[in-house]
């Protein structure tokens, strides 16, 4: 068997932690090899070593059978190794062509010469079925298209080995299908792919072999076809993972939230929500599915009071709160797990104990007559840290910034659930988290529902919506395309509704 890239016995130490411990990964020519592991398992370190960003402490790298020393990314490029990063590295007001030639601009004398480059990009695009317009500006094209620009960038530099770092995190179900087709096209043209992911379904769908990494060590390398998804999850997490969320049947109660004909403008002053109406009841999780940027953000902001409502009304527990301020909505029993935990959810420079009272610092026992009660604040923080298993260096006194993303998220989820809200707005509550944390947060959301509270779950992960929801509402271009019961629908129908094609025979 011919290997194009071999990483043999790679070990890398960081202060206090061994990120890679004797890792061996071999990529065959013409295969898709998945690298599976939780956040912090050591995948990124390993790829950074292959890409020349870190030097390994021991171990060797062979490319096409020959031992090489990759001491910077240019060497990796020269060896035909290219990486599609999770966060694209594109200049937004440049065209596709300008982005692709950036760093190796073809010139005629002192002038930039882009015509030939554009032609070559067009040809590559056709060869691999990428459908990219070389003259489009990055800011005008979709996220899925931007990813293709990153792919062409690699191909333009004659990459033979392509590393994809969590490529589907930003894509819709349909775009994911397209990406998989593109990957197959790449294989057909003789490329080899290393796919970094924690999504088992994708590995099952596209990868040939899979190397599972846990805590810096290789657990095993397996042929994907021979191993069940659940087994791979076990290998990744190190214990049995409960995929199906346990959820008992229960009658839903009265409506806690009634949205009536809501019209809201986006930040760019375009219509983000159009006559949007929806009810959320006690004892249910209502999942709101939709492609990113179809009005979900604006809906949640309007509900919480972060955004002005143009017309229509919001009733919360029977009271019109359309024009109430944020504070009074929180006090009335509305909690919000925000989409962006670092922007909205936490004051990163505050200690965790201060972050835990971010909304309730004005209430006894946390303060009296305007003076903070440090003892009560500390006790509160320690209880939440205990209950929600928030791990940090210095407990309640840890500064928010020092926590890992997963622990920051657990802290926010804990804080919001601890308010015992009648309505919990959970926006992407598990984004970027590992399987263990996801399982935990899902359990807490279901608990909320079981206790007769209402949960509005907004997520871009269709699986999450399908698993958790008692009812599924779909939003497209700011309009409700329908409401479905999970057992009466499937992924492809919801996918179509997300694209704006209203479901047949929908129920309200």
């Amino acid at each position, binding site marked *: 068997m011919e290997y194009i890239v071999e990483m043999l016995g790679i070990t890398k130490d960081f*202060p206090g932690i061994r990120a890679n411990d004797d890792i061996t990964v071999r990529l065959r020519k013409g295969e898709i090899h998945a690298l599976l592991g939780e956040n912090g398992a050591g995948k990124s370190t390993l790829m950074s070593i292959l890409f020349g960003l870190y030097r390994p402490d021991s171990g060797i790298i062979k490319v096409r059978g020959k031992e090489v020393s990759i001491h910077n990314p240019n060497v990796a490029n020269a060896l035909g190794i290219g990486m599609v990063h999770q966060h694209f590295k594109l200049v937004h007001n440049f065209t596709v062509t300008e982005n692709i030639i950036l760093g190796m601009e073809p010139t005629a004398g002192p002038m930039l010469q882009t015509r030939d480059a554009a032609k070559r990009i067009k040809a590559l695009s056709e060869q691999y079925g990428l459908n990219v317009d070389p003259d489009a500006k990055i800011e005008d094209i979709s996220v899925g298209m931007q990813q293709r620009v990153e792919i062409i960038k690699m191909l333009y530099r004659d990459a033979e080995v392509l590393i994809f770092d969590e490529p589907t995190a930003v894509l819709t179900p349909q775009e994911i299908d397209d990406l998989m087709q593109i990957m197959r096209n790449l294989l057909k043209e003789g490329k080899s792919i290393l796919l970094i992911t924690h999504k088992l379904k994708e590995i099952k769908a596209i990868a040939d072999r899979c190397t599972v990494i846990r805590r810096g060590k290789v657990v095993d390398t397996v042929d994907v076809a021979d191993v069940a998804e659940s087994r791979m999850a076990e290998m990744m997490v190190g214990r049995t993972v409960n995929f199906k969320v346990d959820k008992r049947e229960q009658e839903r109660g009265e409506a806690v939230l009634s949205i009536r004909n809501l019209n809201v403008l986006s930040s760019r002053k375009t219509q983000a929500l159009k006559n949007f109406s929806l009810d959320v009841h006690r004892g249910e999780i209502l999942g709101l599915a939709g492609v990113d940027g179809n009005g979900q953000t604006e809906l949640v902001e309007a509900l*919480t*009071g*972060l955004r002005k409502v143009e017309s229509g009304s919001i009733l919360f527990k029977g009271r019109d709160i359309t024009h109430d*301020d*944020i*504070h*009074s*909505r*929180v006090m009335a029993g509305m909690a*919000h797990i*925000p989409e962006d935990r670092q*922007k*909205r*959810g*936490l*004051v*990163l*420079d*505050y200690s965790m104990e*201060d972050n835990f009272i*971010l*909304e309730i*610092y*004005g209430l006894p026992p946390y*303060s009296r007559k*305007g*003076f*903070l009660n440090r003892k009560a604040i500390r006790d509160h923080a320690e209880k939440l840290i205990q209950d929600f298993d928030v791990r940090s260096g210095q407990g309640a006194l840890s500064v928010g910034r020092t926590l890992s993303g997963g622990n920051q998220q657990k802290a926010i989820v804990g804080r919001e659930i601890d308010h015992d809200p009648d309505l919990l707005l959970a926006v992407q509550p598990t984004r970027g988290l590992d399987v263990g944390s996801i399982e935990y947060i899902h359990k807490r959301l279901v608990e909320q529902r079981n206790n007769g509270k209402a949960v509005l779950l907004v997520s871009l992960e269709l699986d999450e919506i399908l698993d958790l929801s008692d009812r599924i509402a779909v939003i497209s271009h700011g309009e409700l395309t329908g409401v479905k019961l999970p057992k009466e629908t499937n992924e492809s129908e919801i996918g179509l509704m997300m694209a704006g094609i209203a479901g047949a025979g929908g129920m309200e």
Partner: protein
Amino acid sequence: MNRYKSLFTALAAVVLGLLAGAVFMALSGSNPVAGFYYLFRGGLMNLERIGNTLASATTLIFTGLAVAFSFKTGLFNIGASGQMLMGGLTATAIGLSVQMPRIVLLPLIVLAAASAGALWAAIPGFLKARFNVHEVVATIMMNWIAYWTVYYTIPAYFKGTFLETESRRIPALASFRAEWLTNIFRGSYINMGIFLAAAAVVVIAIILDKTTLGFELKAVGFNRHAAEYAGIHVPKNIVLSMSISGFLAGLAGATYYLGYAVNMQIGVVPSAGIDGIAVALLGANSPWGVAASSVFFGILHSGKGFMNAMTKVPPEIGDTIIAIIIYFAATGVLFTRLWERLTRKRSKEA
């Protein structure tokens, strides 16, 4: 840990600033040891000198607190000079035109001057909160408005006996100087402002660390999006933060023009407003740090004249040292890194 880090940064900046000063003294052909001896002796050698040092520090404490408070809450109040001028003008106007018992008059002057400073800072605060006008630009503009307001008001209404360019002398009744205090410090121009300044340090420290008001203001300063999410009224807090900052600068004006000085001159932007930025920086924006660095700068201010008299070192060296210290304090990141490296090494050895 964090507190030690700021202290280390500040001390490193001071030491490096002094060392650089020594180099300059040597270059100007003087003995640095003698230079420093007279510099510190000039600030501390007797009660009168100490009094003068504290009098300089009084103004710096107020302006330093003003800048530090705005910094802590995510704003950059560069307009302490203007707020100080308006506070001083208000204080001067009352001091020269109102007759009442001193026990009533002085508190009235303090309150009126502080309110004038607060109002002067509230305007840029409002512009920032409502229209997102950057407070640096707005406060600088307000400085010049204050400058010209003083420039026309003083000659028009409070003209001095001999000079067009200054106000009449402040009557003893309205002055912050107290005979008993002046006597203790052997005729120094120390005044009761120092007690107000000390109180301000304590009050600001309490507000920032122990109250819900401080919790809100700092949350807005660190992350206004998260503050907004949490239901904190961001625009209100911006105006409030600027007002408190201006309140402090207004107090600087009252105690400077009615205590440190004996009248108000026109055509001068008080340098204490800008020095407040340096004080806040060196003090790591902590009220206690501000107090300590104000006293240190006070020593340099009152000692540099004596140094010049006793040696050949030009008094500008004193200002140069201050400038270099500020420079090192501003590049404090370097020292922070050094500190982290030192502490990491130690924990490794342990």
